[in-house]
């Protein structure tokens, strides 16, 4: 056995000639130029009062940009808003998506209308759905009409997009609504990969539906749960378009998320150094969250 592996290794080693590099290097050079270099550049910029333009000087600032970000109440609020958005939308869309997937798992072929209904929000552009929700959550919009006139649970029309938490609630509802379909798709694929004989064995042992879910289904789809958790959390930190269109970060920067605030600092306030420092901080936060999520899902075995 060892010899076979050695032989294979030798063959592969022999093959590492100019052709190998021709396959490998173009992609690596592309990534180096368009992604790695900008990342390093951003890191450098975060220590300068960076100015662009002809004959512009960029004085060295040390950690001042980081201090500026971390003592800026709007930046802190933007980071809190982003965390709230992630903590609410990620589990909610996963739970609803999984619930729908469990419901329709047995059905062999869903009709086109149903499928289109769930996939439509997934494939529709964020720009389109955000505009739509802005219209629905307007003062004289559909949401207020349902709450005030149809259900009668609210007396006065709510100014949804006019204050921090109600605007964020609208954005989170949009996020969940758009995300359910994707979660449903991936959980459906995962459920269909669970071996059927596990359920048959559980039936023989007289397991309840709840037991089957917690002892068979959930452990079997653990990989998918982790994948969704990580991807959606990264996605939540990448939120830009829904907030940019729903509120533009207003009123008074109350509803900024990290990326809308960074965009504002870059293009409106022209604080390049500040936004580079903010970018570094966000990237650091995403890394921490990802490591934390992998730690949680790995450490605490669901089974």
């Amino acid at each position: 056995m060892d010899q076979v592996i050695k032989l294979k290794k030798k063959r592969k080693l022999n093959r590492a000639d100019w052709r190998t590099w021709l396959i490998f290097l173009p992609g690596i050079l592309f990534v180096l130029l368009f992604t790695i270099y900008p990342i390093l550049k951003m890191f450098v910029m975060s220590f300068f009062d960076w100015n662009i333009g002809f004959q512009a000087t960029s004085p060295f600032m040390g950690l001042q940009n980081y201090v500026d970000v971390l003592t800026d109440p709007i930046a802190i609020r933007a980071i809190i808003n982003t965390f709230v958005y992630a903590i609410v939308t990620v589990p909610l869309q996963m739970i609803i998506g999984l619930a729908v997937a469990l419901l329709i798992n047995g059905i062999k072929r869903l009709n086109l209308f149903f499928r289109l209904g769930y996939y439509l929000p997934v494939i529709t552009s964020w720009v389109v759905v955000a505009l739509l929700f802005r219209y629905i959550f307007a003062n004289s919009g559909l949401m207020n009409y349902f709450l005030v006139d149809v259900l009668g649970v609210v007396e006065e029309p709510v100014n949804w997009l006019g204050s921090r938490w109600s605007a964020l609630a609208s954005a989170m509802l949009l996020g969940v609504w758009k995300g359910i379909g994707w979660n449903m798709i991936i959980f459906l694929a995962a459920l269909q990969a669970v071996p059927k004989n596990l359920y048959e064995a559980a039936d023989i042992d007289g397991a309840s539906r709840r037991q089957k879910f917690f002892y068979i289904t959930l452990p079997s789809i653990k990989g998918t749960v982790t994948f969704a958790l990580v991807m959606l959390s990264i996605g939540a930190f990448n939120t830009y378009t829904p907030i940019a269109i729903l509120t533009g970060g207003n009123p008074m920067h109350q509803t900024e998320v990290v990326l809308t605030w960074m965009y504002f600092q870059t293009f409106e306030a022209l604080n390049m150094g500040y936004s580079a420092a903010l970018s570094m901080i966000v990237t650091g936060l995403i890394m921490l969250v990802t490591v934390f999520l992998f730690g949680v899902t790995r450490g605490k075995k669901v089974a």
Partner: protein
Amino acid sequence: MVIPMYYMIVSALKDNATTFIYPPDFFPSLKILDFRNFQYIIENVLFLRYLLNTLFVAFMTVLLSGIISSLLAYSFARLNIPGKKIIFGIIISIMLVPGLALIVPQFELASWFKLTNKLWGVILFYTAWVIPFSTFLLKGYIEDNISSELDESIFMDGGSVFTVYRHIIIPMASPSIAAVSILNFLFPFEELGWSQAILKSDEIRTLPVAISMFFKAHSQTDWGYVFAMTTMAMIPVIIFYLLLQKYFVTGLSSGSIKG
């Protein structure tokens, strides 16, 4: 789920002035519905131009990122490259950096290459954004589904890594390449921040930028026009979905089971 979508289409068919009437007219009589908003968009907005721009960006992004990420995926999965595990790790961790976070250095790079206000300025950077995830998915697929004995047999017959790439990897990884392509195709229909920074002239805008600019230009009130435009913008995506239904589910769910 579909209620908001239904409401959008109905509002697109209503006269602009009636879109602000309270209570909202959820089931309007057919008599007040017409296609005048659509007519307005077609006559007053470069809609077809925006659509072609978006399609061009989408196809080029799919093509470029498909070539680059399949080459990288093949390298990482099979080729004997010193330190490839570390390099792969670095490429994967790029996914943790929000695309928009790099907007300043990438914008400087784009101006350096004179790519601002050009569609290629969007295409090249979109490609750079999607490469890590595409490479991750394709590498996983190659490792799990294509036996390396096939490579060996090609080498025995005197073939090179090029032969393997063209005659083994590309055809056999095609389901995964299709899935990745779908994701990358949808991206230009979605992305706003970068395209809005790069595409300044009206005639080269992609749909997300054009829609958002139109909305702002019409004092954020002409909902009839806005929804006519968004409804039209959805049509190509829906056609795309109907044509590729089979690959869509694998496209959206790829990478998820292995985790």
